[in-house]
């Protein structure tokens, strides 16, 4: 512990009015390994920054504590060389702006925060990045449909070598079966000829794209930078790639389940079957009256509850070519809502102009068939009464079902395929992180990820490929990818104490750990997103990061001065997730919302990274209650690490049972979840809990 610590305390932004600076400096100066302690009225000014920078040079400062604003603020100013360990003590948002200025309790909070920061820097190190050997910059694209082709072309243009594999003999996927395409360029008013031939030709021009048709995947092992892929095309062949974009697409919803919409009766086809019929039958004998039923099995709780987004456009397109091929035909379109998103509305308006295409909202009541004629009864129509349509053909606009990802054959402890979210799509996070799957380095694009049409698939392919490229480049630097982009730390395991309990291998949301036959975890560091959920999972406390360890947090907890006399000053330890909950607390401060000065906040990488030992450390230290504030779990979750919040809930129940066996009230531990926008609820969450703890009374372990 010979590191030179420099502490800089800012009195700007009302921090100076709230706190006694002499006392803070006195405390800091007398702490372990501190060489410099200065206060300044505005550390983020040029003058303030120069003071710090000069000390780094002249006083050989190696660890830096800036006690000022939130670590989320002014990051562009407080940007120091990589060999300087930087700690930011949040005196502004979480003390000066949310607690009463000049009060003794506020001062005590500030002193504790400073102690925690000093203890932290004394117990952590600058991480040395894990840089894998023989990192490949090649990229694998799985699936040769429009998404895969677009992704491959984008990567090739950016200078990366690409392998694109397709299980069929020919590239092109669904687009090979199209007679026409929905217009996706201005003026959006006319169906266009399929573009797939041109796309395949464009792809074939790139020398850095290797095309593998009639090929499947036998096995994928390894990690970003070093995926070992065994391809099977008659014989097995192994390639090594840095990252993967998977675009294995969709299947139409099984129309056999749509007997109530007439499927199974003669002349009742799905949109896909009709498209193929027109494509493959040059005579194209189309009947006089044709009915489209939109949302056939879509937006229907008994079938697909979601909208596939492409069926309305497809029916409009098919209606236009029916009318071109057979000018006598009448086309009826019965819909729930016509959903032509964005500029597709222009196409809808154009189709509406046709005098023999009839649109009505409606619900299909009954379909009967008599010698080839289909009688369809529709209720809730725009006509104002129930109608009966007599038609010769029905086309069911069926939706998309994603293909299984099991044929990726991932050799992962957590399974062969990609984890699925809502409606079985392999998405990761609906709100913030498109393309991310829960398998780092593997990105889903196109209708495998979410239902979408051709134009959306192409932009999706571009986005996913960008992610794949980012992964390779980040892996080369030994850095984490989203959401802790640039983090150079990685979990280090003290294997001597590991009991092969498999908690870490099971709970890692990203499948970063594999197992040997005994159940001992095998690390794949470049798969890791650095969330620390494994840190929280390990009962033996063998997992830590260089700058975020069991010991560093324990030491911080122990550095807090807990007053002896409870009656005056209870203490609540608050673990707050850095991702959404911590910014919500900062926002509460920014809005000037006040809350109790009895709380001591420790930010954590994910609320799922809180280890049980920290709870017992806090209780032995004399804290009267422990509050965990995580990000909101659930299907449309906010948790950046997928199920950190849910794990906390289950773990929390276990901890409460433990509290009871220790003869402590289970209420001494509480978990709350907030969204990032819930800043206004922060004071109530904190104050209610402080009040409850005051009612329960002091922690009996205090002073023991």
């Amino acid at each position, binding site marked *: 512990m010979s590191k030179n610590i420099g502490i800089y305390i800012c009195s700007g932004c009302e921090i100076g009015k709230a706190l006694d600076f002499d006392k803070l400096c006195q405390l800091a100066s007398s702490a372990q390994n501190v060489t410099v302690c200065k206060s300044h009225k505005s550390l983020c000014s040029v003058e303030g920054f120069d003071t710090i920078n000069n000390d780094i040079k002249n006083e050989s400062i190696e660890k830096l504590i800036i006690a000022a604003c939130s670590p989320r603020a002014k990051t562009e100013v407080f940007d120091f060389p990589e060999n300087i360990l930087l700690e930011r003590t949040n005196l502004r948002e979480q003390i000066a702006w949310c607690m009463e200025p000049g009060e003794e309790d506020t001062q005590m909070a500030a002193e504790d925060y400073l102690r925690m920061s000093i203890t932290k820097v004394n117990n952590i190190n600058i991480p040395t990045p894990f840089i894998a050997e023989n990192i490949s910059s090649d990229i694998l694209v799985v699936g040769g449909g429009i998404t895969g082709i677009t992704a491959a072309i984008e990567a090739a243009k950016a200078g990366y070598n690409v392998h694109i594999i397709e299980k069929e003999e020919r590239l092109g996927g669904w687009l090979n079966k199209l007679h026409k395409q929905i217009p996706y360029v201005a003026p959006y008013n006319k169906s266009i000829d399929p573009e797939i031939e041109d796309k395949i030709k464009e792809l074939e021009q790139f020398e850095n794209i290797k095309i593998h048709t009639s090929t499947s995947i036998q096995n994928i092992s390894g990690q970003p930078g070093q995926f070992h892929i065994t391809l099977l095309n008659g014989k097995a062949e192994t390639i090594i790639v840095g990252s993967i974009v998977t675009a294995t697409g969709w299947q139409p919803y099984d129309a056999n389940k749509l007997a109530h919409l007439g499927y199974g009766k003669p002349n009742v086809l799905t949109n896909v079957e009709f498209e193929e019929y027109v494509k493959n039958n040059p005579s194209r004998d189309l009947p006089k009256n044709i009915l489209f039923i939109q949302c056939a099995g879509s937006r229907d709780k008994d079938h697909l509850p979601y909208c596939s987004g492409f069926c309305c456009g497809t029916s409009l397109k098919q209606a236009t070519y029916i009318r071109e091929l057979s000018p006598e035909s009448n086309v009826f379109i019965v819909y729930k809502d016509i959903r032509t998103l964005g500029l597709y509305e222009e196409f809808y308006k154009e189709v509406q102009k046709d*005098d023999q295409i009839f649109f009505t909202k409606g619900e299909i009541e009954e379909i009967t068939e008599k010698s080839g004629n289909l009688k369809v009864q529709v209720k809730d129509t725009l006509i104002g009464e129930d109608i009966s349509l007599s038609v010769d053909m029905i086309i069911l606009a069926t939706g998309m079902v994603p293909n299984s990802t099991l044929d990726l054959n991932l050799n992962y402890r957590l399974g062969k395929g990609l984890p699925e979210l809502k409606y079985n799509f392999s998405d990761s996070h609906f709100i913030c992180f498109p393309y991310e799957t829960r398998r780092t380095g593997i990105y889903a694009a196109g209708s495998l990820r979410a239902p979408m049409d051709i134009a959306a698939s192409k932009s999706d392919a571009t986005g996913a490929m960008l992610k794949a490229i980012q992964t390779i480049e980040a892996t080369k630097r030994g850095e984490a990818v989203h959401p802790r982009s640039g983090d150079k730390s990685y979990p280090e395991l003290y294997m001597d104490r590991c009991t092969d309990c498999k908690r870490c291998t099971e709970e890692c949301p990203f499948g970063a750990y594999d197992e040997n036959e005994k159940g001992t975890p095998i690390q794949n560091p470049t798969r890791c997103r650095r969330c620390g959920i494994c840190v929280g999972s390990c009962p033996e406390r063998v997992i830590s990061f260089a700058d975020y360890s069991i010991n560093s947090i324990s030491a911080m907890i122990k550095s807090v001065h807990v007053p002896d006399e409870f009656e005056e000053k209870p203490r609540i330890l608050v673990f707050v997730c850095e991702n959404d909950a911590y910014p919500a607390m900062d926002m509460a401060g920014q809005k000037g919302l006040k809350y109790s000065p009895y709380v001591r906040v420790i930010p954590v990488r994910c609320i799922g990274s809180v280890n049980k030992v920290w709870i017992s450390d806090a209780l032995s230290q004399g804290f009267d209650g422990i509050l965990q504030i995580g990000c909101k779990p659930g299907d449309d979750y906010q948790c950046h690490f997928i199920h950190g919040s849910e794990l906390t809930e289950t773990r929390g129940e276990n901890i409460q049972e433990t509290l009871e066996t220790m003869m402590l009230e289970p209420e001494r531990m509480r978990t709350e979840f907030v969204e990032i926008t819930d800043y206004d609820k922060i004071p109530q969450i904190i104050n209610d809990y402080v009040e409850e703890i005051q009612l329960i009374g002091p922690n009996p372990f205090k002073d023991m």
Partner: protein
Amino acid sequence: MINISPDIKFKKQLKQVSKSSLNECMQCGTCSVVCSLAPEDRPFPRKEMIWAGWGMKDKLIGNPDIWLCHQCGDCTSYCPRGVNPSDVIAAVREITYQHYAKPKFLGKILNNPKWLPVAILIPTVIISAILFTAGTLQIPEGPVNYSKFFPHAWLNSSFTFLWILSIGLGIVGLRNFWNDMKRQNEEFESKGNFIQNLFMILKEITLHSNFSTCTAQKTRKIAHLLVFYGFIMLLVVTAFAIYAALTHNYPLGLAHPVKIAGNVAGAMLFTGLGIMIANRIFDKKNFGNSTYTDWLFLISMLLLTISGVIVEAARFLNWGIAYHLYFFHLICVWFIIIYLPYTKFGHLLYRVVAMVFAVSINRKVKA
């Protein structure tokens, strides 16, 4: 439950006559909300717009609501998609004349400018034939005396006959119209007989109060009242003239009350028609799209009025071309009378019948 079988020909005709895009109607219902006449229950013209878009001819033709509309144009002014509901409704009325026309070809030739020469030729030939039969098809000698050219007996009997023929053929169409309305509205119980129900609407017809609800077209009510009463007065005057020709010394002097009434009626007609024509020419925004059928009716009425005045003057002034003018005036008269059920003049019949039907199923306009 209604069987859908779009009449594409009808839809195309509607689009052509109304100059509306029809399909762009998004069924928002703004038209029905702003309409000051639409009944609370099943208001128009929203439902008519989708029937039009779906080519549902039976629904539209057998629909009394089409005739409850006074085409004030409020719906067209407020329509967010610019689909001109009021012109669509007017087009349905126009097509109705043709649909119920007996004989069919008259409906056709009177609504297509291509056939205008034939339409003019028919009364010309009939009049010439009558004069030829009467043996007076030549310019008489002496001071102007129209009865020398067209003997009163011939004139009055053929005039009366044509009126009866015209109304008779009209009634055949109206019967079919009535039955169609009944079929389309069978769920509604009908009450009262035709005469009772006709009596119920007399007040509206005489006072034109529904016209007052039009905000966009202020001068319409007065114009229509002038034409309406002007025409009725002329009918009465003519009937008296027929009577007078038999009992009095004909022609009547200028100071005779009937003569005065005739001249006043002519002036009313002229003024009313003048306002109507001016509105259609100078205020297209509020008066919408004027079709051939609109113009044919207005211009033939105007020519009738003007030629009538000139013919009267020619008699007093003893003009040499008086008989030629008289011949022209007669063509105008006969044109209007024999074509009554097939031109826009037919609204006199269809609107009254539709209004009576509406009363019989207890359908009341808001105003």
